[in-house]
């Protein structure tokens, strides 16, 4: 580059112009690197929904419901995208009230090649927009784990639309939007740390999942009849794709190809590993055998728990967070679920609600400015308990409380509305026949064809 400029600019008395050109070139180079990583991350996060979550959930249901379950994830990729383009991005990221953004970016007006310095100064705002869209896609897809095998497709589409508008967009604005109530970096009243969506993605989806499970009631035959996963192999492929995609989710949340991204990448991977070991170990002691389902459930639990903490913690605390998440979520889905007998079909609450809450609180313990030195109010301040700021745990708890309250109340009201307009649960006959045939008129496996 320098040689090129030397050729272009012959005279030494043109020094200021040469410096300006050099500065612009350096800026372009950084922007190119950051943009390449962020577009890759956006694609990785989409990969988490389809085929990652689609296969993970699809393998866990019975054969007669595999397509309907895969479709829950797939349809989000289309439906949420359109909502996001019209109003979603604007309601989350334009300035508004502490609770919801405005309509400045409605229909993506003004969202293009220029960066938005409030969020990510080195990448086009268009990149930031498409990256954040992928989070809005996967969050409602996570809830489908609780209503699988019994929710009407029409009710699912309406529920998802209303849920994004009334629960996800407000929560994401509060945590990540400029001026949001919980945004530690952009003027929030309650400083909380949520690097990649512990509250926004996992607590909201997990708690909403529990409300769905309670509202819909148990599947026919649960828990007296055996309802086994129809293909553990599909679930393993899905879970491993989730693990890979999560690097885009967490390391991408650095919004740059930076050292912070590397740190988040490492924390993410370590937590997943420790959680897989934790869950399988607990299972081995508890029921005598370590299972593949235990392994993949554990890794997802660890990935969930590290999500809010990933850009704030060192590698050893990441291992601790992962291990605790594996043990805690194992206890939630085996002991607690069986105690209360709610039918959280694929354990969306037990893994995402419980793991997200644990991760959000532990972020308050382990967050340190040795990892994340982004200034808050113009200077670098102590972050979590390990930095000497014990009060952060309380702030994190307030964030958790708001997410739980919004998700629980919002989901209940939306389900009521959907129930009044469409009815939410399929008929007993349709449920018996399976949702693939009754809702979609097709089958996942036609072996004689």
């Amino acid at each position, binding site marked *: 580059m320098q040689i090129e400029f030397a050729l272009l600019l012959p005279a030494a008395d043109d020094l200021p112009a040469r410096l300006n050109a050099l500065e612009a070139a350096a800026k372009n180079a950084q922007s190119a690197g950051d943009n390449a990583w962020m577009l890759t991350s956006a694609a990785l996060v989409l990969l988490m929904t389809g085929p990652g979550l689609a296969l993970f959930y699809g393998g866990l249901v019975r054969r007669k419901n595999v397509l309907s379950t895969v479709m829950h994830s797939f349809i989000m990729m289309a439906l949420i995208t359109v909502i996001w383009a019209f109003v979603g991005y604007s309601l989350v990221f334009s300035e508004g009230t502490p609770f919801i953004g405005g309509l400045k970016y409605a229909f993506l007006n003004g969202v293009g090649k220029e960066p938005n310095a409030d969020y990510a100064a080195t990448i086009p705002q268009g990149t930031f927009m498409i990256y954040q869209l992928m989070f809005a896609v996967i969050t409602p897809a996570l809830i489908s784990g609780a209503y699988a095998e019994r929710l009407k497709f029409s009710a699912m589409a309406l529920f998802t639309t209303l849920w994004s508008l009334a629960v996800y967009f407000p929560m994401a604005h509060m945590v990540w939007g400029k001026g949001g109530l919980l945004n530690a970096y952009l003027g929030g009243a309650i400083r909380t740390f949520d690097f990649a969506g512990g509250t926004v993605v996992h607590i909201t989806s997990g708690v909403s999942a529990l409300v769905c499970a309670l509202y819909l009631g148990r599947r026919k035959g649960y*828990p007296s009849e055996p309802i*086994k996963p129809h293909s553990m192999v599909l679930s393993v492929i899905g879970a491993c794709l989730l693990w890979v995609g999560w690097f885009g989710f967490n390391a991408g949340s650095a919004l740059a190809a930076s050292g912070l991204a590397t740190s988040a990448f490492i924390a993410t991977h370590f937590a997943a590993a420790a959680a897989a070991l934790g869950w399988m170990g607990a299972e081995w002691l508890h*029921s005598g055998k370590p*299972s593949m*389902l235990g392994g993949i459930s554990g890794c997802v639990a660890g990935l969930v728990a590290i999500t809010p903490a990933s850009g704030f913690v060192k590698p050893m605390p990441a291992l601790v967070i992962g291990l605790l998440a594996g043990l805690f979520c194992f206890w939630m889905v*085996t002991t607690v*679920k069986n105690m209360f007998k709610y039918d959280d079909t694929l354990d969306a609450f037990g893994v995402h609600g419980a793991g997200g809450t644990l991760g959000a609180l532990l972020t308050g313990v382990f967050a340190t400015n040795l990892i994340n030195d982004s200034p808050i109010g113009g200077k670098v301040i102590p972050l979590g308990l390990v930095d000497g700021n014990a009060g952060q745990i309380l702030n994190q708890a307030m964030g958790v409380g708001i997410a739980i309250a919004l998700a629980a109340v919002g989901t209940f009201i939306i389900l009521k509305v959907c129930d009044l307009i469409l009815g939410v649960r399929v008929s007993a006959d349709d449920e018996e026949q399976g949702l693939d045939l009754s809702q979609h008129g097709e089958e996942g496996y036609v072996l004689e064809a």
Partner: protein
Amino acid sequence: MKKIEAIIQPFKLEEVKEALKNIGIDGMTISEVRGHGRQKGHKEVYRGQEYNVDLLPKVRFDLVVATERLEEVVEAIVTAARTGKIGDGKIFVYDVAEAIRIRNGDRGDAAV
């Protein structure tokens, strides 16, 4: 003529087929079936939820032989299919009233 219905462990399929071939039996029908006798299945655990799987995969042989060959054939199947453990399966023998070869109308022992 006798019909032999043998229900055996799936992993013994090839050995039994080979044993029958060795004594010159070349007609048989094989199906994959599920069932249990005294074996009573096994336990599976998915996220802490226990299921008893009592119908286990088995393979069923159906073959019809001339009455004088019965003992020889049964002996061959028993020897090949036995592991000595519970779940090895059972053999049932029935009388057959008639056998007809569809291609040319052969009847009786000539048809089997």
